[in-house]
């Protein structure tokens, strides 16, 4: 059964993640759009608690130039 975009499980809740690390760029990239914006949780299914933690991690990574603030589409 394919799940539509409004019906997804939160991967962080499933694994009971305690801390989303800003250094884990590959993980953070999954929750960013192609223009490196943070993807809203109604697309990704992330729970509110984790979406907030995710946002903090992404912003930290951006400050340390691990992730871009903006990326222009080509």
């Amino acid at each position, binding site marked *: 059964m394919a799940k539509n975009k409004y019906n997804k499980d939160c991967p962080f809740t499933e694994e009971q993640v*305690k*801390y989303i*690390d*800003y*250094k*884990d760029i*590959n993980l953070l990239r999954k929750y960013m759009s192609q223009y490196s914006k943070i993807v809203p949780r109604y697309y990704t299914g992330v729970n509110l608690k984790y979406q907030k933690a995710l946002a903090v991690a992404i912003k*930290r990574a*951006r*400050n*340390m*130039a*691990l*992730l*871009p*603030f903006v990326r222009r589409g080509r």
Partner: protein
Amino acid sequence: MTEEHVREDANKYELMVIINPDIGVDAIKKRLDETRKLLTAEKGGVAGEIFFEDVWGTRDLAYKIKKHDKGYYAVFDFVTDPSMIREMETALGLETEVIRHMIVRLPGAYQSLNYAALLEKQAIEEEEKKALKLAAKNKRPLRPGEKPEAVRVPAKTEKVAEKTVEKESAKSEEKVEAKDEVKEEVKEKPKKKETTLEDVDAKLKSIIDNPDINF
């Protein structure tokens, strides 16, 4: 308050610094030593303590900072008195060789991560996923002959397990040997079955040869 008491109460912090890579190897080493000194500085008879250190080395910045497009990254996990953090921040901020720095408070249960090991682990996990996907793909066209599928799936998971073991063993010096081993195994399997397996092998090799993944 005794020293021990303070240590238990003290918070864990993580410092990430980006050092100007153009200043030369010696200067970078000096800078790292100085940051270590800064983090372990004493105050009121209690010294900070670095319990984990991870030097990433030079890597590309996601965007230019002060006209630099590369930076030398280093991560320090340390325990210190909270009152020290502000002093560290100002000291680092004044340092021209440090392009950027960030001190973050770590949760109590945090386990320090080696960045290279993390990348390696993720590469392996991706391989697993790809293998599973391929297995799923192969299942559909082969529905009439059910037996080969049942054999195939466990074979692949075993393969991945072998790989992980080898990669762990290969961490330091046996890198080259391990590569050969992987390739040998890889060669044995595609002979049995289709082109899709060869695709997996190509991906595997590209990941093993990937310069971004340091053992």
